[in-house]
C-alpha cells in the first residue's frame, strides 16, 4: 500500500527533506506545548522517521556500501576469498550442470511427467527368449536381468490398455544406416519408431509432417523424418529438406518432415539423424527375417514408452499392466524353466527419458558431486579462517562500534553482508568458470563420438543452484566469525589490543577445530587424487596386444546393396587386394568388428583327443567357451600380433579348403597345451584344424580380463546364412597398416571405394589408435576430471592448512616472546608449539582416514587397475598432509622463536 511513497523515500534527497520536515514540525509543537509536555521528542522523531520506510533496505544499502569500502581497502584479502569461492562454486556448478542434463532435466516434450518407460525383470535369461542387444539394452543386477526390450506383439497389451494409458509407442535404434542423396553417401544413426511415437511424445513438426500411424503399416510408407541438425547439415535448411528423395541403405525414401531442434529422441546424450517408421524395417532389411521379428513372441527388440491417462499414477498403472503382461508372457512360455521365471513388468518414470546415459554416468556423477562438495567445504573452512583472522585485526574497530552503542545484531548483520558480498562475487566469477568448465566437460566426453550430445548448458535451474550455493556458503563461512568477532569484551579490547584477541581465542577455540576439520576433509580428496593419478597411468599403459599405431579403420556394409554369398566374398577380397596395392600401405586385413570389438558372441569349445588339462564343465555340461572373431587373410601381420607358432590366415582358407582356426594363448592354456598347432578344435558340431597360436590381445573391451579367443577365416563363414553364431559378416571392418600417418590414406581409400561401387557407404573411418582411445574416453575423461578436481582440492587444502596453522602460531607470538624473555631456549619453544598443532593435525588425520574409508567407495566406478582402499595411496596421502602440517607449523614457529622478545611482547 502506497509502496511508491516507500520507494520515494529510498531517494536520499526525498528522505532528507522528510526528516527535516519532521524536525521542524516537532520544534513548532514544542513551542506550542511548552518544554517537557511532549515527553521524549527525540525518540518520537526517531520512531516517526521509521514509518513508511524500508529500514532494512536502507540499512542493507549502508551495509553494502560499507562492505564495498572494506573490500576495496583489503584488495589482497578480497581477491583471495573471491577466487577461492569462485573455484569452489564454479566446480560445483559445472558438475551440477552435468547432473542436470543427464539426470534431472525432463524431455523437451509435452507433459514429460506423464511418460513411463516399460521394463521387465527376471531371474535369468532363458534360451528361447532372444534379447537384442542393439536396442535400449539389458543389464544384470542383483535380482537377475533387467531389460527394456520387448517383443513387438507385446505392444498390443499396452496399446489396448487405454484405461490406464493414453498412448503406448515403441522404437528401436540402428547405429549405422547409409544415407545417400545427390550422389553423396554417408553413415547415419537412425531410430525406427512406431507410427504413434511422435503423437505420444507430443511434439509438433518444425517443417513438413511427422510420422503417423498410417506410415507404420505392414505395407509401410517409404518416408523418413530428419532431425533438425541433420537436415541443416545435409540440405542447408529444414525447409529445403522436406520433399527430397533420398536412398537409405540403397532403398528409396522421401523426406516428409523435420523434428524441432530441441528434440533428441527418448534418450539424452544421443541424437539420431533420422526417424523411420518401425515397419519400414521391412523395406530396409531382408523381409524374411523381418516377418519373424514383428510376429515372434520370443524376440525382444523394441523399447516401449507410454503416456499415463490423466489422473492415473504410475503404481496404479503398473499393477494393472503387470497383470496383463503376465498373462501375455505366460502364454508365450514354452518350457517349465521359462514358466518358473516369467518376466515381471515394471514401470519407470519416463520424465527424463530412457536411462542409458544415466546408467553410464550416474555413479561417476555421484562420486564427482561428493568431491566438489568436499572442495566447497574446504573453501568455506579456508575463508572462515581468513575472516576469523581478519576479525582479530578488526577487534578494535568492532569494540569501538559496540562501545558507542551499535547493536550486536546490527554488527553481525553487517559482517554477514560483507561475507555474502564476497561469496556472491565468488558466485558470479564461479558461473563464468562453470560455463567454461561445462563446455570443456561436454567436449571431453563427446570427443570422437559423432552422435554423442551432452546438452550441458546454463539454465535457470543451474543459475539458481549457483546463487543458492553462494548464499549458503556466505552464511556458512561468515556466521561463525561474525558471532565470534562481536563477542568482544569492550573494555579490555580497547585498552589492550591483545586482550580481545585472547578472548576470541579462549572462548570457542575455533582455530584448532578448523585445523582438524580442514585436515579431515582433505584426506579423502588427497586419497582420491592419488587413486585417479594411478588410474590414469594404468589406463594409458593398457597393453592391447597389438600395434595400434599407423592403422586406418573403416567399415563397409555391401549386403545392403544386395551383395550375398560368393559375390560378397569376392567384393571383400577385391577391395582388400586393391587396398594392398595403394602406395604407402604395408598390409591390409579385415575383421567382422574393429578391435576391441565392444561386443560379440562366445561359444563352448572342445579339443579332440587327450589334452594335458581337462577343463571343468559347468552344470549344463558345457566346457570352456571362447570368443569368436571372424578375420581376413594377413590379420596377424596387419595388426602386428605376435604369433608363437603356426601360420597366419591366407586367401586360401576359403570355403573350398579345410576349416581352420587360430587360437590365442589363453585358449590353448585352458587345455594345458604349449603348442596346439595341428590339433582339432570342435564347436557347434564342426571340426576346425588349429593352424596358428597367437599371443593374447584385447577382445571385447580394454578394461577386461583376457578372454580365450579363436580367430576364424571370414571366407569360411560367408556361406553359412543367418542361422549360426558365426554366420556371414554382412558388415566388415578393414584394417589398413600404413607406413606413416594412416589418416593421410583416407582420400585415396574413399576414392578406391567409390570406384569399386559408388553406392557403397564408408562407415566409421578412423585410426586404430583413436578407436582404442574412444573405447576408454569415458574412463580417461572421468579420471582426468577427477585428477583435476583432486589437485584443486589438494592445493586449496594445503594453502588453507598453512594459513590456519601459521595464523594460530603467530597469534601466540606474545606468549612465545614472554617465554623467551624468561630464558626458554628457541628449540624447545618450536618443539612445544609444533607438538600442540601437530596434535590437532593428527586428530584431523584420524578422522579423515575414517571418512576416506567410506567416501572413496563411491569412486570405485571411476577407477581402473587399483582398489579404492589401496593402502599405499592412503599412506601417501596421510604422509603428504602430515608434511604439509609440519612445514606450516615449523616456519612460523621458528620465525616467532627468533624474533626479538622485547618486540614480540610490545607488539600490538
Amino acid at each position, binding site marked *: 500500500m*502506497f509502496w511508491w*511513497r516507500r520507494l520515494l523515500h529510498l531517494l536520499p534527497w526525498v528522505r532528507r527533506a522528510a526528516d527535516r*520536515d519532521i524536525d521542524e514540525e516537532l520544534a*513548532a509543537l514544542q*513551542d506550542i*506545548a511548552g518544554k517537557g*509536555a511532549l515527553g521524549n521528542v527525540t525518540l518520537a522523531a526517531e*520512531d*516517526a522517521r521509521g514509518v*513508511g520506510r524500508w529500514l532494512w533496505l536502507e540499512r542493507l544499502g549502508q551495509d553494502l556500501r560499507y562492505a564495498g569500502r572494506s573490500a576495496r581497502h583489503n584488495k589482497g584479502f578480497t581477491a583471495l576469498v573471491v577466487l577461492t569461492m569462485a573455484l569452489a562454486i564454479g566446480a560445483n556448478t559445472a558438475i551440477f550442470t552435468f547432473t542436470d542434463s543427464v539426470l534431472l532435466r525432463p524431455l523437451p516434450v509435452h507433459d514429460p511427467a506423464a511418460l513411463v518407460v516399460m521394463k521387465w525383470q527376471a531371474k535369468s535369461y532363458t534360451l528361447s527368449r532372444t534379447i537384442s542387444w542393439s536396442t535400449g539394452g539389458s543389464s544384470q543386477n542383483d535380482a537377475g536381468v533387467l531389460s527394456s526390450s520387448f517383443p513387438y506383439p507385446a505392444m498390443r497389451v499396452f496399446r489396448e490398455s487405454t484405461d490406464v494409458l493414453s498412448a503406448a509407442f515403441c522404437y528401436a535404434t540402428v547405429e549405422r544406416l547409409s544415407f545417400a542423396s545427390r550422389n553423396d553417401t554417408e553413415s547415419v544413426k537412425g531410430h525406427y519408431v512406431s507410427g504413434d511415437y511422435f503423437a505420444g511424445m507430443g511434439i509438433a513438426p518444425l517443417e513438413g509432417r511427422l510420422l503417423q500411424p498410417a506410415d507404420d503399416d505392414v505395407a509401410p510408407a517409404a518416408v523418413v523424418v530428419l532431425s533438425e541438425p541433420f537436415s541443416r547439415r545435409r540440405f542447408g535448411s529444414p525447409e529445403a529438406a522436406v520433399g527430397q528423395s533420398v536412398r537409405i541403405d540403397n532403398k528409396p525414401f522421401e523426406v516428409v518432415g523435420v523434428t524441432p531442434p530441441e528434440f533428441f529422441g527418448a534418450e539424452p546424450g544421443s541424437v539420431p539423424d533420422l526417424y523411420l517408421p518401425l515397419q519400414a524395417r521391412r523395406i530396409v532389411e531382408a523381409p524374411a527375417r523381418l516377418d519373424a521379428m514383428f510376429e515372434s513372441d520370443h524376440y525382444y527388440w523394441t523399447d516401449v514408452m507410454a503416456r499415463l491417462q490423466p489422473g492415473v499414477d504410475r503404481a496404479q498403472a503398473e499393477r494393472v499392466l503387470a497383470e496383463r503382461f503376465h498373462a501375455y508372457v505366460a502364454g508365450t512360455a514354452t518350457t517349465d524353466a521359462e514358466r518358473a521365471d516369467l518376466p515381471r513388468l515394471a514401470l519407470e518414470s519416463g520424465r527424463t527419458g530412457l536411462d542409458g546415459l544415466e546408467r553410464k554416468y550416474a555413479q561417476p556423477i555421484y562420486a564427482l558431486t561428493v568431491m566438489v562438495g568436499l572442495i566447497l567445504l574446504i573453501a568455506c573452512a579456508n575463508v572462515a579462517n581468513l575472516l576469523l583472522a581478519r576479525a582479530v585485526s578488526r577487534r578494535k574497530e568492532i569494540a569501538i562500534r559496540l562501545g558507542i552503542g551499535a547493536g550486536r545484531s546490527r554488527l553481525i548483520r553487517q559482517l554477514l553482508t560483507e561475507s555474502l558480498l564476497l561469496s556472491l562475487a565468488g558466485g558470479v566469477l564461479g558461473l563464468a568458470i562453470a560455463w567454461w568448465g561445462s563446455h570443456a566437460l561436454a567436449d571431453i566426453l563427446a570427443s570422437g563420438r559423432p552422435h554423442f550430445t551432452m546438452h550441458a548448458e546454463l539454465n535457470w535451474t543451474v543459475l539458481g543452484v549457483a546463487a543458492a550455493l553462494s548464499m549458503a556458503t556466505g552464511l556458512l563461512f561468515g556466521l561463525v566469525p561474525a558471532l565470534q568477532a562481536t563477542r568482544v569484551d569492550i573494555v579490555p579490547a580497547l585498552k589492550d589490543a591483545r586482550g580481545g584477541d585472547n578472548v576470541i581465542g579462549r572462548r570457542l577455540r575455533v582455530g584448532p577445530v578448523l585445523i582438524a576439520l580442514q585436515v579431515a576433509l582433505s584426506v579423502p580428496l588427497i586419497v582420491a587424487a592419488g587413486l585417479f593419478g594411478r588410474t590414469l597411468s594404468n589406463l594409458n599403459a593398457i597393453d592391447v596386444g597389438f600395434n595400434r599405431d599407423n592403422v586406418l579403420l573403416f567399415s563397409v556394409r555391401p549386403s545392403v546393396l544386395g551383395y550375398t554369398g560368393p559375390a560378397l566374398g569376392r567384393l571383400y577380397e577385391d577391395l582388400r587386394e586393391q587396398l594392398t596395392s595403394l602406395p604407402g600401405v604395408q598390409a591390409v586385413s579385415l575383421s567382422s568388428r574393429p578391435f576391441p570389438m565392444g561386443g560379440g558372441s562366445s561359444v563352448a569349445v572342445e579339443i579332440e583327443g587327450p589334452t594335458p588339462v581337462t577343463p571343468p564343465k559347468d552344470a549344463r555340461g558345457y566346457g570352456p567357451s571362447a570368443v569368436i572373431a571372424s578375420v581376413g587373410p594377413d590379420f596377424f601381420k596387419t595388426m602386428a600380433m605376435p604369433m608363437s607358432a603356426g601360420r597366419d590366415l591366407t586367401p586360401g582358407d576359403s570355403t573350398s579348403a579345410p576349416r581352420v582356426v587360430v587360437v590365442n594363448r589363453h585358449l590353448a592354456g585352458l587345455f594345458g597345451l604349449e603348442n596346439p598347432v595341428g590339433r582339432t578344435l570342435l564347436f557347434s558340431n564342426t571340426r576346425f584344424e588349429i593352424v596358428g597360436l597367437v599371443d593374447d590381445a584385447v577382445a571385447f573391451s580394454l578394461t577386461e580380463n583376457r578372454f580365450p579367443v579363436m580367430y576364424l577365416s571370414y571366407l569360411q563363414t560367408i556361406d553359412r546364412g543367418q542361422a549360426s553364431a558365426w554366420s556371414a559378416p554382412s558388415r566388415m571392418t578393414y584394417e589398413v597398416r600404413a607406413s606413416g600417418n594412416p589418416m593421410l590414406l583416407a582420400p585415396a581409400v574413399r576414392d578406391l571405394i567409390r570406384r569399386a561401387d559408388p553406392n557403397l557407404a564408408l562407415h566409421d573411418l578412423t585410426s586404430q589408435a583413436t578407436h582404442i582411445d574412444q573405447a576408454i574416453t569415458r574412463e580417461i575423461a572421468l579420471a582426468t576430471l577427477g585428477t583435476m578436481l583432486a589437485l584443486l582440492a589438494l592445493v586449496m587444502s594445503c594453502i588453507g592448512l598453512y594459513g590456519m596453522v601459521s595464523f594460530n602460531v603467530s597469534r601466540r607470538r606474545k606468549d612465545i616472546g614472554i617465554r623467551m624473555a624468561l630464558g626458554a631456549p628457541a628449540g624447545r619453544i618450536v618443539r612445544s608449539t609444533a607438538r600442540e598443532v601437530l596434535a590437532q593435525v593428527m586428530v584431523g588425520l584420524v578422522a579423515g582416514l575414517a571418512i576416506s574409508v567410506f567416501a572413496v567407495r563411491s569412486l570405485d566406478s571411476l577407477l581402473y587397475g587399483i582398489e579404492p582402499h589401496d593402502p599405499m595411496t592412503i599412506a601417501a596421502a596421510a604422509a603428504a598432509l602430515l608434511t604439509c602440517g609440519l612445514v606450516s607449523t615449523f616456519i612460523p614457529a621458528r620465525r616467532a622463536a627468533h624474533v626479538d622478545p622485547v618486540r614480540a611482547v610490545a607488539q600490538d
Partner: protein
Amino acid sequence: MQPLHGVLEMLVLRTLARQPLHGYGIAKAIHLASTESIGIEFGSLYPALKRLELKGWVASAWDTSDEGRRAKYYRLTATGRKKLNQEHAEWQEFASAVERIMGPVPEES
C-alpha cells in the same frame, strides 16, 4: 489509561473528523473528550499519525493557528472518513460483545 494500538489510530481519526488539528492538539482533544480519563503519550501518537498519513487516511499541511503560531495541521481525507465509518461500526459491535460477556460487576463471594 493507554489505548490499544489499533484503538489509538481509531481515536485519532475520530478526533480529526470534527476538525483539523496539529499533533499536540490531537493529544489534548482526546484527553478532553475522554473526560481526562485517557492520556496519550505524544511519543506513541506522533508515529501513529505518520502511519495514518502514509496510508493516506489523513493529510497534513503547514498552517497558522488562531494564536498566530505556525504548525502542521492534520485533516481527515475521504478515504480516512470511509475507514472511520467502517471502524466505527466494527467497534460498536466489538464493544457490545465485550459488554455482553463482562455484564454487571460480579459480586465477591
